[in-house]
């Protein structure tokens, strides 16, 4: 996870387009200025960043399902549960599965796990829109390449 660049996903581990599900690896950094504030003497990953990891994992799934033709933007989060603290240098497995494909939007069920144990989960809604710019489309493709997306 590169907090400074807001990239929460490190590596694709599994992608099943037929089942419409994805699994990614996200390794929490050992040190970060984020931990200096959250919290002194008790560094833990902010819940919003766990949600962002689930949203980004969902986003990569939807990019693949739309053949990178449309950009998924986070639109809503429901029933988010932050079940355990996640500490520095923890390796997480982040999964997402399509719950519903609507007209111009998707809904996924996403989860963060550590050692097979759920630490966070949520229902994620994303709007599917045309790319606002060619630069963004190219950059998203580079991000996808970085994590090993096909």
């Amino acid at each position, binding site marked *: 996870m590169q907090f400074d660049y807001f990239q929460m996903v490190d590596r694709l581990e599994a992608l099943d387009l037929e089942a419409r599900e994805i699994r990614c690896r996200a390794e929490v950094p050992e040190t970060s200025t984020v931990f200096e504030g959250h919290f002194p003497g008790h560094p833990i990953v902010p819940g919003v960043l766990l949600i962002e990891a689930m949203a980004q994992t969902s986003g990569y799934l939807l990019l693949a399902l739309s053949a990178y033709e449309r950009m998924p933007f986070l*639109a*809503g989060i429901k029933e988010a549960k932050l079940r355990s603290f996640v500490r520095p240098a923890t390796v997480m497995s982040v999964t997402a599965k399509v719950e519903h494909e609507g*007209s111009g939007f998707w809904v996924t069920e996403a989860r963060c796990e550590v050692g097979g144990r759920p630490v966070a989960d949520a229902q994620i*809604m994303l709007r599917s829109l045309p790319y606002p710019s060619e630069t963004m489309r190219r950059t998203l493709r580079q991000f996808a390449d970085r994590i090993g997306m096909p």
Partner: protein
Amino acid sequence: MSATFDSVADIINEVCSIDRAKITPESHTIDDLGIDSLDFLDVTFAIDKRFGIKMPVERWMQEINEGRSKVDDYFVLKNLCLRIDELIAARPA
């Protein structure tokens, strides 16, 4: 249409926290009920799931933007319910 309207009205009441008594077949989702685009996404999701359909909202918006349809054709509830009934009837068995 009545059963469809009741279901849609219940969904709007639950999703948008709008007083059920204010939701009538003549209600305009935007002008009368004040449902914004994000809330309408939630309503659409709930309707899609409840009825096992996929409301083609993007296509409807394109028709409106191109002048081939009017906003009221889709966003006045009695008309929206007619569209839902059509989609239900067109579902594969």
